[in-house]
């Protein structure tokens, strides 16, 4: 399949053409027309990054494919996308291993996508820099004013997305609010929009002024808290200046409080937001880490929490595998939705990469080496998909032995993701330079 390669500085694809062609009735156009209009754009299609995170590791033998393909019991839901899937076998949260935090797998959410680790006492820790989704969205924001430059969703659990050192990006956890955030402005008449914007801007200006004066005398730590608040207000101001993208809102159930309904609704909205170019960088977390707020999976006939099942080790594997397969069914839902959107001679999935991470290797040992990562989508042809790449000390792993350090820092994977997204770098996070050229096409 020929893939659309995008320019390094991605221009807003087909926006003007799209708006011109559909005029004011955008909300009522069938999706297929919107897709055609997008495909008509001459600027190429944008690349998109989605990170998906949950915890409690995997049962290695059921997860890692032994034969070089991407076929395994747990990855079965991605079977139809096998040619677009890349299993990255053998990367470590190396800085944690080297700081003797090797069994702190429940404490890696600040680490997974930032490539940084800062211990704050005991097992607690924070990030020491921004996560890949933030870095990518910042780079894109320099070129294009997107309605939602960074979309952070936490169906449940903590957010693994970080604006910077110690500054976590809170995720949206409410389906109705997410819907309004992404799609409501498309139906607001533009004359009203201008008035509303002017008012919103004046309020934000006032709040900015208050915040600035408020922290003038404060100590360094407290001032940083107010600075972080101020930066959030600035982000809201920036979003005011982005024009709303015409988009056909997906049909989703936003009223349900049931976990799996919420996951489905969030993923369907994410897919449409990516297809409509409302956002290009998304961080999704749908399950807890650390067992701090355990999710349960009663619809799978699992009468314990995900965390407790994972803790049982081998005794819990039958239930854990059942749960992990369900998790990958959700990943597949998003991937297939993107793959159904034609973009030139490829699909939206081909121009994207969905990076699935985890907090640990296996759920009872909590080890932070040999973390299961999966990439879906080649990111505009950057990655060579349809295979499992075994890295470092994991080069010869097969059968029963998917454990132990690979000695490959996951920072290299993050650097590769950055490069794939046309944000060139020779290193990502702290401590370990380089990227994973083995993954490239």
């Amino acid at each position, binding site marked *: 399949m020929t893939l659309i390669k995008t320019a390094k500085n991605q221009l807003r694809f087909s926006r003007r053409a799209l708006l011109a062609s559909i005029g004011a009735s955008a909300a009522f156009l069938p999706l297929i027309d919107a897709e055609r209009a997008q495909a008509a754009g001459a600027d190429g299609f944008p690349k998109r990054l989605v990170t998906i995170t949950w915890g409690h590791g995997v049962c290695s033998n059921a997860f890692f494919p032994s034969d070089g393909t991407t076929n395994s019991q747990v990855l079965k839901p991605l079977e139809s996308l096998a040619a677009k899937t890349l299993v990255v076998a053998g990367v470590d949260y190396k800085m944690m291993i080297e700081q003797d935090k090797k069994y702190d797998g429940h404490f890696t959410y600040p680490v997974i996508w930032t490539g940084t680790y800062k211990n704050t006492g005991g097992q607690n820790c924070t990030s020491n820099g921004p996560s890949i989704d933030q870095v990518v969205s910042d780079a894109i924001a320099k070129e294009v004013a997107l309605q939602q430059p960074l979309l952070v969703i936490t169906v449940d659990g903590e957010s693994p997305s970080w604006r910077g050192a110690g500054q*976590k990006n809170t995720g949206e956890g409410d389906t109705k609010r997410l819907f309004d*955030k992404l799609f409501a402005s498309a139906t607001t008449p533009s004359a009203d929009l201008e008035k509303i914007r002017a*008012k919103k801007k004046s309020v934000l200006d006032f709040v900015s002024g208050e915040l600035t004066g408020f*922290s003038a005398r404060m100590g360094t*730590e407290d*001032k940083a808290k107010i600075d972080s608040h101020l930066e959030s207000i600035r982000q809201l101001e920036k979003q005011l200046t982005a024009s709303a993208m015409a988009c056909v809102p997906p049909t989703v159930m936003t009223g349900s409080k049931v976990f799996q309904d919420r996951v489905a609704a969030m993923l369907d909205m994410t897919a449409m937001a990516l297809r409509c170019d409302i956002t290009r960088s998304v961080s999704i977390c749908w399950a807890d880490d650390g*067992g701090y707020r355990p999710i349960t999976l009663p619809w799978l006939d699992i009468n314990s929490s995900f965390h407790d099942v994972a803790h049982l080790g081998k005794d819990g594997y039958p239930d854990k595998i059942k749960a992990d397969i369900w998790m990958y069914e959700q990943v597949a839902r998003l991937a297939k939705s993107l793959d159904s959107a034609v973009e030139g001679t490829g699909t939206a999935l081909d121009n994207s990469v969905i990076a699935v991470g985890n907090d640990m290797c296996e759920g009872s040992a909590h080890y932070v080496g040999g973390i299961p990562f999966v990439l879906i989508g080649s990111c505009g042809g950057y990655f060579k998909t349809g295979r499992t790449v075994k890295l470092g000390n994991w080069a010869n792993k097969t059968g029963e032995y998917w454990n132990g350090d690979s000695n490959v820092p996951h920072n290299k994977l993050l650097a590769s993701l950055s490069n794939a997204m046309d944000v060139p770098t020779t290193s990502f996070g702290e401590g370990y330079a380089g990227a994973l050229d083995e993954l490239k096409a």
Partner: protein
Amino acid sequence: MRDSKQAIAGVPSLVSLVVGVGAALAGLLACDASIGGDGAPGPGPLDGGGSSSGGTVGVGPAANAAGPRPLLRLTRREYNNTVRDLLGDTTHPADEFPEDRDRAFLFRRSGLVATQDADLLRTTAEALAKTAIQTPSRVLPCDGASGEDACAARFIAEFGKRAYRRPLSDVETMRLTAFYQNARTTQQMSFNDAIETLLEGILQSPAFLYHWESPYEVPKLDGAVVQLGAYDVASRLSYFIWGTMPDQALFDAAAAGKLTADADVAAQARRMLADDKAKDAATAFFREWLEIDQIAPLPKDAKSYPDYDDALKGALVSGTEAFARSVLFEGGGKLETLLSADYTFSNQALAKVYGTSATGNTVSKTMLDTSQRLGLLMEPSFLTLTGSPDGSNPVKRGKAIYTKLLCGVLPPPPPNVPPAKPATAGGTTRQRFAEHSQNECARGCHTLMDPLGFAFEHYDGIGRYRTMDNDQPVDSTGTIALDGIDHTFADAIQLTKILSTSDTVRSCFAKQWFRFAVGREETDGDAPSLAAIATAFATNQFDMRDLAPAIAASRSFRYRSLAAGEVTK
């Protein structure tokens, strides 16, 4: 936001605990990999403990020292209560905000304002303002028709004072006035729309959202510490004892300079305790201390506990809340009573757990079978929360008592601890967990937690009393070294009697309430305050009602240490 000083600040309490609980506990390794809920990453950004000038470890603090005051923001509970009292809005809008859970701190503490939070604060402010202006008299002290600019000025001064919980500084008044004029003139809004816009701004302003001093005044130094202003003390009192903004009496006391002397502050605290709002805040203390609000998402095995449904979950929480509130406000207020009362609060759903015949959905006072159960630790809520999905869990129960009642600090669990065997492997829970505790890592740490937990083996995963476990008789005997004495107990009833008069427990309980009050862990600078609080607590045989006035009158409540980088001129 946090730094290594947080870890250092925790050391003194650990040391004193180890000494307090007994040398037998010293140097032990923790081993709670199977306990669950084993914490997780990320500091709560608005954490308290990390403040940089909380006293120097190893050097005794001066008698007039005070702990730090890290910047805190309104929690969900405080936000809801505040807009109720400020705007008459009872819709609990902050229930939509993210939970204020901070993994590094037991009590609720709100985090940094990320973009998503700022967005939510904005949409909430918009909705609140829109509703409030429908009934202008709720927010406007005057009628715009009789002079718009004058009315706007009064609104800014009078509503502003209540919203910011202190008189506005000149700078703030000027900015709000300019903001009003921009709305009314430049944006050509109607008078009411302009006021609505101002409301949106005020409800998003830091003076409303954060617990802090007037930023435009030089801090009042008293030696090496800062004395909080009268309005600030009023606000702090109000949020501690009521969980909401000050009432008019507190505003008046602040204006009259009546919140400076220890006795004045303590007297206000006693007045406030008599108000129903104090019951809500005290209930929040118990709820957060015991973490019983975590029962709602807690799963249990439906085969083992078919009665564990939403009705029971709700009753577990409301029963314990009603019990704690009753002891505190109607039952004499003694800590000993809390831990060893012969009554509880029950309803139809809880009757299945207690094996009684209570009816109705409302919980009401019920006498216990004192041969089976006494006090807080045998409340089904505590036993459910610390139970496994399909049985009891001595380690979880021991850990909860060790950390919540003895203020013990557990080091991180070692790796690769195989879990205790399931019930299908045969043997009682105690036998299976005892075997687990003999694992290489475990002997040390489990001697610390297990005896406390094994005492509760008469209660299953939802707190039902039992004499048999997996077809064998329950063994709930044990020993514990506490307050320098080796105690032997036959069961939880005997253990709870030991705990209910323990100095370690008393000291820990006072410390927990102090942490709840100041939103952070204690530091060396708090030593004089904690000593004064302990003395006050002992005065009336450990009456919990003496704690709030003592905490309010303590140095660390009305003074604070200087923060690194603070501008004091």
